């Protein structure tokens, strides 16, 4: 599965676009880190699957952003990638092996997931919290090894929270907390990192800081990243690929300048907007919400 295939679930209105996509299929790409095929994912409490799509790919060494409106199934897809949810049909292959087949600690050495919700007991220091990221690498009676300490230092450094090392997590701001949690996932030292809305609820400064950490990690450490983002503009700016989900189905996927179109914004996000492509990437100027 080294070529991009386009989903067949796309609405029939843009046939012309589909033809362009055929060409994209032939574009050679590097190997895929994570591949999902023929998926139907749901929760035990729901009858119908929440997400159904034929093909989801996170290309190795690239940043892929999952975008879509609320309830489109982004988080569900991400949870399923990390084996927190077992798909009703299909499976995700991590380096060719089904994620369900991994022993839980083995998977956690390959794949790190930062959930949307996490709680931390108040009087933990940042360093202690980051140390927990080494959990999958330690046996029941193991102490921290030199390698563990190095990974912890590197994670704290990468996330830029060195100055907070001895601070208790209860005394951190929302943005600092998010960076510290990212440091914890980084300490896990995985080749694939999944993040569920890491920038939501943060001020602009911290949003950019989080995105920069992700970018650095991707470029310097060659970590493959899958990230759910609420802000499509941000996704277009930072991601190499976008996966656009609409109502549990794959709407489109590819590089930002191909995926981010006025049709996408109208069909998926139900927003009337102008998209201009410049050197930085697609720029979105939203005008108004489209009435049902």
């Amino acid at each position, binding site marked *: 599965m080294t070529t991009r295939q386009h989903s067949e679930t796309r609405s029939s209105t843009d046939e012309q676009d589909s033809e362009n996509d055929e060409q994209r299929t032939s574009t050679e790409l590097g190997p895929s880190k994570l591949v999902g095929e023929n998926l139907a994912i749901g929760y035990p409490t729901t009858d119908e699957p929440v997400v159904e799509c034929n093909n989801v790919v996170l290309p190795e060494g690239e940043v892929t952003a999952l975008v879509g409106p609320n309830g489109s199934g982004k988080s569900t897809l991400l949870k399923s990638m990390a084996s927190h949810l077992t798909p009703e049909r299909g499976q995700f292959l991590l380096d060719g092996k089904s994620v369900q087949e991994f022993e839980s*600690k083995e*998977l956690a050495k390959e794949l790190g997931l930062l959930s949307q919700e*996490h709680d931390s*007991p108040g009087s*933990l220091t940042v360093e*202690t919290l980051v140390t*927990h990221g080494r959990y999958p690498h330690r046996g029941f009676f193991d102490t921290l090894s030199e390698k563990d*300490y190095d990974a912890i230092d590197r994670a704290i450094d990468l996330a830029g929270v060195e100055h907070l090392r001895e601070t208790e997590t209860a005394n951190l701001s929302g943005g600092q907390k998010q960076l510290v949690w990212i440091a914890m996932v980084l300490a896990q030292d995985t080749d694939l990192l999944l993040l569920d809305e890491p920038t939501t609820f943060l001020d602009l400064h911290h949003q950019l800081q989080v995105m920069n950490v992700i970018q650095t990690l991707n470029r310097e450490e060659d970590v493959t990243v899958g990230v759910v983002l609420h802000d499509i503009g941000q996704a277009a700016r930072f991601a190499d690929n976008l996966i656009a989900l609409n109502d549990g189905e794959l709407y489109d996927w590819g590089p930002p300048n191909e995926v981010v179109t006025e049709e996408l914004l109208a069909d998926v996000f139900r927003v009337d907007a102008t998209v201009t492509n410049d050197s930085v990437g697609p720029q979105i100027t939203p005008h108004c919400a489209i009435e049902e």
Partner: protein
Amino acid sequence: MSNESSVGATAETGSRDKNRFVWLLDRRLLTTALGSVILVAIAGLLQVRYGAYSMTLGEVWAGIFNPNVIFNLDAWNSFLFGSELPEMSRDSLIIWELRLPRVLVAIIVGMNLAVSGAIFQAVTRNELASPFILGVSSGAGLMILLTLVVFSGITFAFGLPFLPYEIVFRPSSWLPLVAALGGAAAFLVVYLIAWKNGTSPVRLVLAGVIVGTVFNSMQTGLFFFADNIGVVQSAIAWTTGSLTGTGWEEVRLVLPWSFIAIILAVAGSRQCNVLLLGEETARSLGMSIEKVRFALSGVAVLAASASIAVAGIVSFIGLIVPHMVRNLVGSDYKKVIVGSLFVGPALMVTADVGARLGMGAILGADLQIPVGIVTGLIGGPYFLYLMRKQNNMGQI
């Protein structure tokens, strides 16, 4: 500023201590431990000195540090393995054979209950959890009543093929073990009820309440069938928790299990820490949550059952000690567990002073009350104090 922090970091990296136990050298933890040890020493001294036969401090000193006992292998053999007791002075005999073992039992029971409570609070993520939240006390209580009331005069005799003698089983002489097993069985029932594609803290607590309610009703019902006041008093002593009459035999009974439970609890404290980061995070970090939760609960039940076997169902220690410790040393579970190992005994030994000598001091009567009554009397007001002081209690 940045310069300063980087200097601090290198200094720290340089002096990084590879010792497994370096975190024990925490000022708050050491203070807590020291304070608890002093409290245990004072309360223990009171227990040893006073009673029906009171001694002077000098006599107590001479009796405890009697070289004929301390350096006598036969004496230790007798204490720890139950062999014949060698000759010793009257004071030493009273101290070493009667009063000191009771203090020791109190220390061990205090450790067990405190650690058990701390683990259950992490597993259920609820500050109001106690060692008995998952049905352990109700199962043990029911078995105690059944043994005392229904099976009191009954002897089970099993004739085995190929063996010339038969195995005689008299439930009443195995009361401690029967009680502990009843507690563990109730815990398993609770787990079975709570299980549905895995468990959750809320399901576990609810199942515990359900099983507790049913078993407690049956237990109360059995009181009606008790034919004399002695049986009722004995049942009450067991179900409220009492250290009256405990000696070296109880120490021997409880020590090995407690040792295992405490080692596992300290080793498992890191699992508690990760569990407290939330289920999603723990799973992302590769924890097999259901396995860890069951294993930790098992350790906590082992500790609780061991203490039930020698002291009955002592309430409140397991509930308030982890609370106090968390307030004293912070929420890192390694420190909470170790702190509980000190504060638990301090509270238990102190409460037992009240149970053994309290009525004598107040009424002048030679009467002992179950220690569970005293722990309840201390625990209630302490909780009231916490409730007034803290705004949000409940979830950890």
